[in-house]
């Protein structure tokens, strides 16, 4: 995390433009710009600025956003739940579709279902997310009018009272089923666009590790015992094939955050990705640093969860 903070901090100091001038606008006087530099410590030597930043960071103070003029920590608290809800839905969709697709593909190797899964996986690994999002909006919103094309909830429905910040969960907690239905509908297209890449990666990984597991002798033994095909595939083979797939799931969760930048831009989704884009455009580096630090933290926590996932899936690691 210290390394991440040094790199983002270093970046904020190679900016050719002056963040104080950008923040104060073209009409600000020199005195106003100097006062802004003084207030935000931008006139101090770089190592001192970093020291101030890191000591503040340890107190949970990420500085003030030059664009929104609010504490960055408060901005992140407001925008993170939207991104988390979107990424989590995308990941759940990827797991629910990718794992069975990989298993079916491996068990039907070189037959039609396998070819279909492999072609869809190839497309998923190659398609630009933002283009897919646009096509989904054009078709399901523009042409058919079946699903909304942006935002988290319909304009005419009040947002549920904030408990977790996740609209689907909060609307259920409040017993507001109209808000729940609206927020699920708004989630579908962005989650599909964002999740297609990880679905493809998970399906490929699951297929390849299933093929390896299916050729092992204990699977042959299970078959020789007379167990039914479904039982052999799902109980004996799939569970072991899941172990390498869990690593892939962990890695793809990190990539979902990158993908969220593009998806949120397309779907006007008020999350961290859109916040990061606006912040980078206006050279608001305290905000960009806040987003990257949070993303790095999520990445580290995801790795930890993946390690715990191994232990649950593989007793040899638990008891090793």
């Amino acid at each position: 995390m210290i390394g991440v903070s040094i790199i983002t901090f270093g970046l904020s100091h190679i900016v050719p433009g002056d963040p104080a001038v950008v923040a104060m606008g073209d009409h600000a006087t020199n005195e106003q710009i100097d006062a802004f530099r003084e207030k935000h410590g931008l006139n101090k030597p770089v190592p001192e600025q970093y020291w101030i930043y890191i000591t503040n960071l340890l107190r949970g103070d990420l500085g003030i956003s030059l664009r929104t003029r609010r504490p960055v920590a408060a901005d992140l608290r407001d925008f993170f739940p939207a991104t988390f809800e979107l990424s989590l839905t995308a990941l759940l969709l990827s797991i629910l579709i990718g794992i069975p697709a990989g298993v079916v593909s491996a068990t039907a190797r070189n037959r039609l279902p396998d070819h279909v899964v492999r072609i869809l996986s190839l497309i998923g690994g190659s398609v630009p997310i933002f283009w897919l999002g646009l096509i989904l909006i054009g078709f399901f919103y523009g042409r058919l009018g079946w699903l909304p094309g942006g935002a988290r909830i319909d304009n005419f429905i009040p947002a549920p009272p904030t408990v977790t910040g996740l609209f689907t969960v909060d609307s259920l907690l409040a017993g507001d089923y109209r808000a729940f239905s609206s927020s699920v509908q708004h989630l579908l297209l962005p989650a599909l666009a964002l999740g297609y890449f990880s679905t493809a990666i998970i399906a490929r990984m699951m297929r390849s590790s299933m093929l390896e597991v299916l050729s092992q002798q204990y699977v042959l033994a299970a078959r020789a015992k007379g167990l039914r095909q479904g039982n052999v595939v799902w109980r004996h083979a799939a569970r072991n094939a899941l172990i390498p797939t869990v690593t892939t799931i962990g890695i793809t969760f990190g990539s979902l955050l990158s993908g969220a930048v593009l998806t949120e831009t397309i779907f006007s989704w008020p999350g961290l990705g859109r916040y990061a884009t606006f912040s980078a455009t206006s050279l608001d580096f305290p905000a960009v640093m806040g987003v990257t630090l949070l993303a790095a933290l999520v990445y580290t926590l995801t790795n930890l969860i993946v390690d715990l996932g191994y232990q649950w899936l593989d007793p040899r690691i638990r008891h090793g």
Partner: protein
Amino acid sequence: MAETLAAPAPSYRPLWRRSPVTIAGLALIVLLALIALSAPLLAPSDPLKQVLSTRLDPPSSEHWLGTDQLGRDILSRMIYGARISLLIGIVVVGLAASVGTFVGLIAGYAGGWLDEGLMRLTDVFFAFPALILAMAISGALGPSLTNAMIAIAVVSWPVYARLVRAQVLSLREREFVEAARGLGASAERLMWQHILPNTLAPLLVQASFDMGGAILSAAGLSFIGFGTQPPTAEWGVMISEGRNYIATHPWLSLFPGLAILFTVAAFNLIGDGLRDALDPRLRGTG
């Protein structure tokens, strides 16, 4: 011994019989390269020429892929866009692979604190969401094609460093390296002439996948305004410009998106084929 028995029999069938999709990918990239090289000959018109009387024309015999909101011919813009996309792939992968290979060689060969320090540095880069870091770099340096390529290369080099380091760690203990060392070869000579050539195969596989990845990332950066700037004919810019017309005039974004999809898929197919060819145990499992 068991390993020898388990290893699949080497295949003597030609590559086009073993992996026709890899050949299809390769053919697509060769075709794209030819199109890019002969863009001035192939493009029906100037990619920047605006003809407002023919704006938003659907695909027709006159404009095969239609025209955009400024009456520019989409086919011509896509042909010129191929030049930029291939350039991005080559420059980004060239930069990232050179830096990553250098770092990986040094880390793997030197070992100790230098190896530890360089590997922690790669950890830091892996912890970043690549696009957000690329966006921050591009934002800091100013949005342009060159800066977007630098930004993507900066987030892409660590994977090469890890790959080369792992290879070096295993290669430096091998007999042929020991023999060269015994004959008095210097550290530089061992690294550049004996170890490096043996790390190239996995690098080539990674580079094939990364060519596609770089094209995707650059198009994404252009789409949100951090990469190539309009009116340049670049596929990501074209998708972005067609954004407001997606429901009424979908061809503005549809065709450049398909071009990206096919190009990236072709590189991925080549990567799959190379990986299978270099590691026969993986054949057909990817």
